[in-house]
């Protein structure tokens, strides 16, 4: 808007790419300089890039906190997948029901009103009391995180379906079941997917938190143990692993969304 017209490419490359690479390189360079190059920081505070690499290799081959990087990541991702799946298959139908039926909405809404303000993380201690530190507890917490946005977005999705479309279907003789299947559900898909995307990110965040608080296995546990062992290199490895998994799952969901909702120009 403000910064001039044209001048979007430098040396034949898009300016954004050049600047982006430059800033990343600058930060990495500063990191290296501060830690190993000029030793400006106590290595206990911020590990040098070399240390991170060493830790990465360790967890890759020999393992750490009870498993290799891949086994921890797999375990965590598996839990997210399970919890997320349960949440979708319980939340979306409930949301659709509440969206379709005013009676259902009036009845169930109060329960939501009571439980919604409690953030998922706040359920972790209760989950530990009920299920211990094992997998079930983690899946429960993920289910809680992902459930509410799924319901709300399915609900909103149904409500924003153009009533004219429903009326048109009915004038063509569609039964209620047919209207729901051919008009309401496809029409709510965009909103549902928005909700799914948010749910997934939230699920991932919650799982990491739950594993940090207490778990036997998983990326969160890696972070936890690394913190206790005061192993800065491994802490960074853990954080990066968490970020990568979060980004990959989000991207995968985006792919699914594009395949399912193929009747819309990419928004």
């Amino acid at each position, binding site marked *: 808007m403000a910064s001039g017209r044209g001048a979007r490419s430098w040396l034949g490359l898009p300016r954004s790419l050049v600047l982006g690479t430059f800033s*990343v390189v600058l930060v990495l360079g500063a990191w290296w300089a501060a830690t190993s190059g000029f030793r400006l920081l106590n290595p206990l505070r911020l590990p040098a890039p070399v240390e991170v690499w060493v830790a990465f290799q360790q967890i890759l081959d020999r393992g750490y906190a009870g498993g290799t990087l891949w086994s921890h990541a797999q375990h965590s991702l598996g839990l997210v997948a399970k919890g997320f799946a349960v949440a979708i298959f319980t939340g979306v139908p409930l949301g659709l029901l509440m969206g379709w039926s*005013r*009676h259902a909405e009036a009845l169930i809404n109060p329960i939501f009103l009571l439980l919604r303000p409690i953030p998922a993380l706040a359920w972790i201690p209760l989950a530990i009391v009920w299920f211990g530190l094992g997998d079930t507890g983690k899946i429960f917490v993920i289910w809680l995180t992902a459930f509410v946005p799924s319901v709300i977005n399915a609900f909103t999705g149904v409500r924003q379906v153009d009533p004219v479309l429903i009326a048109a279907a009915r004038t063509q003789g569609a039964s209620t079941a047919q209207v729901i299947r051919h008009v309401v559900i496809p029409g709510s898909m965009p909103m549902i997917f928005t909700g799914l995307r948010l749910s997934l990110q939230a699920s991932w965040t919650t799982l990491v938190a739950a594993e940090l608080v207490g778990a036997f296995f998983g990326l969160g546990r890696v972070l936890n143990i690394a913190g206790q062992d005061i192993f800065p290199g491994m802490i960074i490895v853990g954080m990066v692993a968490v970020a990568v998994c979060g980004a990959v799952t989000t991207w995968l969901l985006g792919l699914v969304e594009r395949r399912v909702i193929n009747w819309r120009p990419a928004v």
Partner: protein
Amino acid sequence: MGQRNFLGPSGTVLGHGEFWLLTLAGFGLFFGTWWGVTALGLLPAQTLPSPLDVWQTLVRLWERPFAGHVYSEHLGASIRRFLMGWAIAVAIGIPLGLLMGWYRVLDEVITPLFDSIRFVAPLAWVPLAALWFGTGIGGPLLIIFVGSFAPCVISAYRGARLVEERLVEAAQMLGASSRQTIWHVVIPGSLPSIIAGLRVSAGLGWQSLVGSELIVVGAGLGYLMVQGQANLETSVVIAGMIGIGVVGFVMDVLLRAVESAFRRRWGQE
């Protein structure tokens, strides 16, 4: 949830009386089931205390200290920490987002850095925060900051980018400098988006605060819950959850009200 026109997609109309009856039934269903389960002894009292137990515990916690402090002190500590961390995120995030939205160059420099850090879950910063700040307040503040920062930047950015281009052109045409344009057009124009973002940011920040208190030692509602869990005093845990829920709810209501007030004033619906 719930528009008030009472005409659902199924075409059924819901009367006023019916609505309130069902709502009350909903509340009744919730508390009834809870109380019923405990009264019938379907679950041990340790797993699920009855609503009455929870109430009594709340009263007890209000007067007598648990895990070092009374309930109000835990509550206060949590709120204080949250407000500090959130204020920093807002103070840095919103101007940054606005500037990134206005100056393309800044956007292109910062976005890759921002995107790479964004995917690290807030609580994943806890071990690093412990490394940097030990058991001081810096730790939770960092976590809250990380949790609430992204929505601030993103909503301010979007707000700035979506300001009607004609308005910016009109301002430039009338001779406004870049600074004047930002102050008189971009900032007011982005306010709706920013305030919506503040709501999201506050919610995430509050959640991050709770999370950090589950791990970092001190006072606070999260800490209260962890101590309750360690002592197998489930009603203490639930009492903590109630406090967390109430504060979160109140915050959301307040910010929603601010949002509506702005919308009404400028006629932007």
